[in-house]
């Protein structure tokens, strides 16, 4: 109860600000229409109009809710206008990209921790890779892969992996280096090999760091997939819904797709968080 009240208060405040903003931002169009019809609008009429336009600059919350209902619940999930359908397209590429990114990130981290040369050479490139705007590089990856006959899920997954491997590398390097000098000395007193130290000490020790990274990585993977769906005229996926909405001025469609993407991201992060809790508790490392 003590948490519910503040949370509800914040949500109500946000919705109120949103409604007020909808009035402000859609008023111009309402006044223009009235002027064209040579009438004037009272304040009440203005408010009603700004909250119910077909193509508002900023749709009101209930319009977005209606849009979400129409495209999620009131429609067959297999329809091309269903957000469930588009969400699934995006989710499948996100999960594939997340998988590739996680494996690549762990592999790079293992290399960095065990090889001085890789430590010095790979990390700067990994950091540099994240400073390149993903919007600039995504179309090139799609075009290049398309020209060698690869299209569909894989190019999107690669762009998604491009964003999600980075937090995994950073977290895993820290995690694999988490064992302290005493624990490593202890391994030395047993004359343990590098691989024995890795499997028995470094890898288990890195788990809390890995999961913290995975939560960031899966959200980044979703962003990567949506960005990958924007260029090259993709027709399926949440990114494509966003783009076609903006082409045709369908702001309600854009906002619905945005909310669907946000809900998807939140759900994915929560699922990773639950797996984290279960694994760390089993390993006796939960805080």
């Amino acid at each position, binding site marked *: 109860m003590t948490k519910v009240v503040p949370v509800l208060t914040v949500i109500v405040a946000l919705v109120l600000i949103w409604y007020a903003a909808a009035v402000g931002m859609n008023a111009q169009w309402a006044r223009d229409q009235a002027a064209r019809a040579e009438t004037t609008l009272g304040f009440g009429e203005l408010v009603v109009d700004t909250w119910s336009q077909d193509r508002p600059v900023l749709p009101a919350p209930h319009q977005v809710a209606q849009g979400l209902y129409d495209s999620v619940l009131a429609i067959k999930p297999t329809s091309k206008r269903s957000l469930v359908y588009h969400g699934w397209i995006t989710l499948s590429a996100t999960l594939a990209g997340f998988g590739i990114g996680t494996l690549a990130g762990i592999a790079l981290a293992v290399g960095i921790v065990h090889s001085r040369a890789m430590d010095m050479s790979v990390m700067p490139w990994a950091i540099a890779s994240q400073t390149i705007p993903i919007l600039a590089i995504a179309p090139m990856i799609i075009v290049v892969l398309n020209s060698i006959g690869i299209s569909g899920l894989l190019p999107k997954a690669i762009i998604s992996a491009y964003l999600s491997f980075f937090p995994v590398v950073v977290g895993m390097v820290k995690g694999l280096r988490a064992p302290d000098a*005493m*624990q490593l*000395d*202890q391994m030395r*007193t*047993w*004359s343990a090999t590098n691989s024995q130290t890795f499997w028995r000490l470094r890898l*288990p020790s890195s788990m809390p760091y890995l999961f913290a990274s995975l939560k960031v990585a899966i959200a980044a993977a979703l962003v990567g997939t949506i960005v990958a769906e924007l260029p090259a005229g993709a027709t399926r996926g949440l990114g494509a819904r966003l783009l076609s909405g903006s082409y045709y001025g369908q702001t309600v469609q854009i906002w619905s797709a945005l909310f669907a993407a946000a809900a998807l991201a939140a759900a994915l992060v929560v699922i990773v968080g639950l797996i984290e809790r279960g694994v760390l508790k*089993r390993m006796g490392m939960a805080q």
Partner: protein
Amino acid sequence: MKTPVINAKGVCLTFETNDGPVQALKDVDLGIERGEFVSFIGPSGCGKTTFLRCIAGLEVPTGGTLTVNGLTPDEARKARSYGYVFQAAGLYPWRTIAGNIKLPLEIMGYSKADQEKRVEKVLGLVELDSFGKKFPWQLSGGMQQRASIARALAFDADILLMDEPFGALDEIVRDHLNEQLLALWARTQKTIGFVTHSIPEAVYLSTKIVVMSPRPGRIAEVIESTLPRERPLDIRESPEFIALAHRVREGLREGHDA
């Protein structure tokens, strides 16, 4: 005469630091015979831990000769000559107590059946018989440290090196563990090297007390204990014990003034 199990002749160790070389050990001569219980005592920076680490092959002396069982420390480590107990128990939270004790056995390639047998044996030695299936967080600090001693005993090293193993425990637990350690030593006939800050602990446990002093780390005095091997806790009230403790304290003070 037989050569001692651990034989140091003129051992020196200089660390190169950013502020120039630091002499951690200077001309350390020491022989430790089989079955002895030797304590190293001295203020911080006297090199007692460093010397123990040299014996374990975790540090390499820059001068002098040091042999363990007639081998170099590095060879001795590979031959599994010693078990090492650190100040922290260092048990893995994701392994049970039995799993933790098996860790060195797995690394050294003992068979599964042999592992089970050895775990059972050493758990008995440290009086943790029924705790094999528990996880470290279910045990008190003192029990965890006993488990870590069991782990060091699990393979057949005849030397036990202990670096302030009870330093982080409270005095009541420490007394109890000291008593148990003496019983364990009597039963297993190991040679023990034991680093400590505590004068009563050193006097109570040892057959030989090595008093060290800092800057540079060196041996100030070696005191042979006159106490019998059989030592109940209340021996610490005896005049003999108090006299020994006094000598150790004097030794520490002289080393400090020098």
